[in-house]
């Protein structure tokens, strides 16, 4: 009973909070669009209300509706996806250092993107351009490589998976660096790709990632209970009716899908996927049924706020990863110190 009430309460609160954040962030930005203008554009475009936009300059409409608003939505999606993905990996590996990139997904993506950038491919499929496609392909190729290397018969021991991931990660990063080295012209471009940003991303990118992110999130949220049981040990989980290999595959796939789809669009954004689940775990405890949804909301909101800072604080963009780390790091440390347990979690 109590449980259910608090759940609904949480849901309502979370949705309201998110809407609030999205609205505040939409009216904030480097370009000065007045609040009333911003509101009118939102009302017109979002709810198809009969609000006249005639007095508002075309530039401002573009800024709010084609740049700022989709960027905020994409930021939320990105933050949510990365945080849930990180929580998933941390659960499967039972390792506090696991992040969405632990299996080499990111270096695979970066390598793919680097190949795309160096070869100046220009093909595109629907909303995907070549770099995005190659990054996505790189991620998944890496995942399958790591998975098949770690496979022992029908089992995939997580310890091996983790070590393989670590090794593949180094190797692919090195290959990418090598490509960068050999192609000075593309070097900066590759480097900027790896320093993820939401700058310049819009509705197209949302369309490109949303389906995958939704699939990933649904799979993850449906695996909560099994993840909880897995935390108590693989043997016990088997005895409690969990098909552990299936769960591993499922969660790895979903987490990787979340990460790969998001980073192939935004480039590599660190920190969120690593630290948000820890922050949330300090608040909710280890149960995934609470950890995952709260991480999702928290990750998304955190990302939106940081990205707003990234695009508004100075005239130039500050890479959002820098903001997340500079603000989030000390906050996490503060929580860590405050929690009496001393963070003996995951």
């Amino acid at each position, binding site marked *: 009973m109590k449980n259910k009430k608090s759940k609904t309460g949480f849901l309502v609160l979370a949705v309201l909070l998110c809407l609030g954040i999205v609205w505040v962030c939409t009216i904030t930005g480097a370009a000065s669009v007045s609040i009333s203008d911003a509101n009118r554009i939102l009302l017109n475009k979002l709810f198809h209300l009969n609000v006249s936009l005639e007095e508002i300059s075309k530039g401002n409409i573009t800024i709010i509706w084609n740049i700022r608003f989709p960027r905020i939505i994409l930021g939320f999606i990105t933050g949510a996806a990365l945080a849930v993905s990180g929580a998933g990996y941390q659960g499967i590996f039972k390792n506090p250092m696991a992040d969405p990139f632990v299996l080499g997904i990111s270096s695979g993506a970066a390598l793919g993107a680097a190949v795309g950038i160096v070869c100046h491919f220009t093909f595109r499929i629907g909303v995907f351009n070549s770099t995005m496609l190659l990054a996505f392909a790189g991620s998944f190729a890496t995942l399958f490589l790591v998975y098949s290397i770690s496979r022992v018969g029908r089992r995939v021991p997580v310890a091996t998976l983790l070590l393989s991931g670590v090794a593949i990660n180094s190797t692919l990063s090195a290959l990418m660096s090598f490509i960068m080295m050999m192609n000075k012209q593309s070097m900066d471009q590759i480097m900027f790709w790896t320093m993820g940003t939401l700058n310049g991303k819009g509705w197209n990118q949302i369309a490109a990632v949303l389906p995958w992110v939704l699939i990933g999130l649904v799979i993850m949220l449906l695996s909560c209970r099994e993840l909880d049981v897995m935390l108590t040990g693989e043997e016990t989980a*088997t005895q409690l009716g969990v098909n*552990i290999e299936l769960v591993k595959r499922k969660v790895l796939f979903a987490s990787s899908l979340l990460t790969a789809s998001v980073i192939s669009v935004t480039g590599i954004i660190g920190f969120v996927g690593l630290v948000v689940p820890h922050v949330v775990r300090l608040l909710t405890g280890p149960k995934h049924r609470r950890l995952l949804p709260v991480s999702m909301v928290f990750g998304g909101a955190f990302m939106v706020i940081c990205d707003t800072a990234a695009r508004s604080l100075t005239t130039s963009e500050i890479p959002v990863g820098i903001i997340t780390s500079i603000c989030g790091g000390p906050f996490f440390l503060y929580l860590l110190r405050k929690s009496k347990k001393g963070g003996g979690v995951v």
Partner: protein
Amino acid sequence: MKNENQTMLSFSHAAVGYGEKVVLQDVSFQVKKGEYVALIGSNGTGKSTLIKCVSGLLPLTGGEIEICGKNSRKLKARERAQMVAVVPQSYYVDYDFTVEDIVMMGRNPYIDFRHRESQEDREIAERAMKLTKTDMFRNRLYNQLSGGERQRVILARAITQQPDIILLDEPTSALDLHHQIEVMELIRQLNEKEHITVLAVLHDINLASRFCSRIVILKDGKVKADGPPREIINRREIIPIRVMDEKQTAKPLRIHVICGEKGGVRILEQLTNMGHFVSAGVVNRESDDAEICEYLGSQGLRLIPSRQ
């Protein structure tokens, strides 16, 4: 459908090992529905290994195991967990789960993304916690419990699984005498009232012969003896276990029960029922137990307020 004499668990020439090392060579025996079998064998004979096989943690290298008539190799983890619950020899959890969380996990085999955890599930867990007396620390963290408390929590989880078969690996090793008998008694109740088939690894042959309907002795990877306790202990074969058998149910004993609080009832009753000469001592005259002793006394229990 379900025949009372149904074979719940059947080992035929089961063999298993770890890598090169063969642990079980050729184990064959069957457990019928409603039996309460004690598995006995010295350290390292493979009792825990056998339990691991049944619960699907180790693949057989030879022979077959059938669970409720189904080949163990082909069982899905979920199906198996609905039929078989395991109380392992020892059990750690690194994470901050509460006792309630742990017990609720017993419902996992019945929940999936279509069937969410229901009020009924919660009630079943509730009942299991009551039965094992773990409900008073339901909100404490599992990894902050004492050894004995943990053992009971895991038993509660197994009960929550509502299995047809329950496998227990030294379920009372960390329990004090009081809880030991309570837990054994609880298991017997489950066995008798709910017809759950029980296979328990026990080192205490006395406990085994008092509670179980049958004893299976493992040695050298094979079943060395198999039968009702009385028979087993009297067998002419060489049984590699030293038994202090003065506690055999077959022979009435004089037993003095020291008890002073309420709660002694069950033990006193049970011992009396077993045909022992029971005496109870140092009972507080005013206490609940005293009344019960008096009551039982009229049924053949000699109440002696103090010894010597």
